[in-house]
């Protein structure tokens, strides 16, 4: 089936019409175990791409490699045409590729608002010498605070903004981490299991937030086990197993792929066990 995302028929490593991230030969070994072995991967710009696969498939390791938190044994990748291999994590984030973590990393003993402010870019007061001269950073701080409060409102955390992040529930921390990542207005946001531990009511609003990101022109790549979420919001699905990309394509096609069903979904993935019905009603 032809579509506006891929150049050819959906297959692992297929070239995209407008890729934002292109990886080649990325391989990471832990001792004898090959955790990631991706021959070719392109992430489409301005779309929501889901990365799925069984536990241990290498999804999080691939995230770590692409964002500079881990170094591959071999491999090259470019982001918006810029070579990223060997670039440290903080620089990757600065050029617009921001990630969240599977195990939420809220900064517990900072307030929710300070967590948000830390996510912002271009705060001159973050340099040691300029920090001492308040007029140099006060204006930018006010702008950052306005942006932070706006995002907190969107994520329904505004009532919590002066509390320590430690006082948030697990689901709220997930929201905070995602909101914090958005403070820098990233070009590509990479969410590692954004729905894990979030209650169903909140899931709905999170889905809306992620769709909203796409409408703002942000590219989203996320790892998720929740198939409803994958089906409802993603434009493209990449399936990993044992470190390799085994399938790629639009969600409905990929989920019918027998290899994917065998490796990951299981035979009964499509029958209604109750939850699907609820999700449909909510939509």
């Amino acid at each position: 089936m032809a579509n506006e995302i891929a150049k050819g028929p959906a297959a692992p490593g297929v070239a995209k019409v407008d890729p934002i991230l292109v990886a080649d030969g990325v391989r990471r070994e832990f001792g004898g175990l090959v955790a990631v072995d991706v021959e070719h991967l392109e992430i489409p710009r301005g779309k929501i791409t889901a990365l799925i696969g069984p536990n241990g498939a290498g999804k999080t390791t691939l995230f770590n490699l692409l964002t500079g938190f881990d170094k591959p044994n071999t491999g090259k990748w470019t982001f918006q045409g810029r070579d990223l291999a060997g670039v440290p994590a903080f620089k990757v984030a600065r050029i617009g590729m921001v990630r969240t973590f599977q195990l939420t990393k809220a900064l517990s003993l900072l307030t929710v608002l300070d967590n948000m402010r830390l996510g912002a870019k271009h705060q001159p007061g973050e340099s040691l010498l300029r920090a001492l001269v308040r007029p140099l950073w006060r204006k930018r701080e006010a702008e950052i605070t306005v942006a932070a409060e706006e995002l907190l409102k969107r994520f329904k955390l505004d009532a919590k903004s002066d509390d320590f992040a430690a006082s948030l529930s697990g689901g709220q921390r997930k929201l905070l981490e995602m909101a914090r990542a958005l403070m820098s207005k990233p070009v590509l946001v990479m969410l590692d299991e954004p729905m894990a531990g979030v209650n169903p009511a909140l899931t709905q609003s999170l889905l809306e937030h992620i769709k909203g990101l796409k409408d703002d022109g942000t590219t989203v790549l996320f790892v998720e086990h929740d198939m409803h979420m994958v089906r409802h919001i993603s434009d493209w699905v990449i399936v990993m197993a044992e470190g390799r990309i085994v399938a790629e394509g639009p969600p409905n096609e990929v989920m019918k792929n027998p290899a994917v069903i065998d490796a990951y979904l299981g035979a009964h993935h499509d029958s209604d066990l109750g939850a699907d019905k609820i999700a449909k009603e909510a939509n």
Partner: protein
Amino acid sequence: MDLIVALQSSFGELITAGTAAFVLCAIGLAIHFGFTGLLNFGQAAFAAVGAYGYAIAALDFKAPLVLSVLFGLLCAVIFAVLLGIPTLRLRADYLAIVTIAAAQVFKFVATSSAITDPSGNVITGGAEGLSEFGGTFYSLNPVPAGEYQVFGNSLTQDQIWVDIVGWLLVVVCALLTYFLTRSPWGRALKGIREDEDAVRSLGKNVYLYKMQALILGGCMAALGGMVFVINSQTVQPTVWGTNFTFTIWTVLLLGGATTVLGPIAGGVVFFTLFAFIQKVLEGLVAIHWMGSLTIPQVGQIRLILVGLALMLLVIFRPQGLFGNKKETLFNG
């Protein structure tokens, strides 16, 4: 035994330069541990490096006061960079191990007589240490000569002078820390304390922040070391042991590690109590209540009490006297 006299003379510790020296080191440690989460167990070495740097510049290069102080600070910066380069990319515990070891190594190097100048003098003074380097400092003394009575203790004009300068430095360092920790720079430090990978993922150069914090806190300790040796008018290698480091830790934890006023209050309370307990113990020896113990022996009891106090503090009041109970590093 007169408790009032004992108490009064103990209050003399409130204002001594010796207390100011430890408070300076503790403010530096607050930046390391309280705000950035760096486990530095070698703060004594930063103080020692500053003190030796100052003394060597004053003695060997006949440098004026300002240059001697700057040289001491430069030595502390170099020391911090040397410790930081290999350890700050690793987990926090590595810095802890390396700082403990580096403090010992520095002590041995200072004690050894291997490093000599061209005319054969040991630069660090070896086991005897260095003395008579305070001339450029005391020659600037504006305090009129005479005896001054403070809390029943008699002080010379030179002691008054070093006390004033020591506490002025405390005020400067505390204000610096106050403004820095309330700036976006300080926010990044606190973020690193909580989770450095998260801060990295937000595009901050964590390694640079940690290095800056290590250097800044180390320089404050170096100033503390200089005040300490100018006050005692001698640099001895044996002073800068783990005792010195853990006294700083006690002062910091007593006051509150994540506060600016904490190290000051902690230092004042600690040294007043320390002196008071000594006076009380001496009084008890005088009236034969301590069995066969002599005065030097009961002095050791104080150190046991310090250890006990440190344990009780961390267990029952981890936030210290001034800290916010919620914002402590021990609550898991």
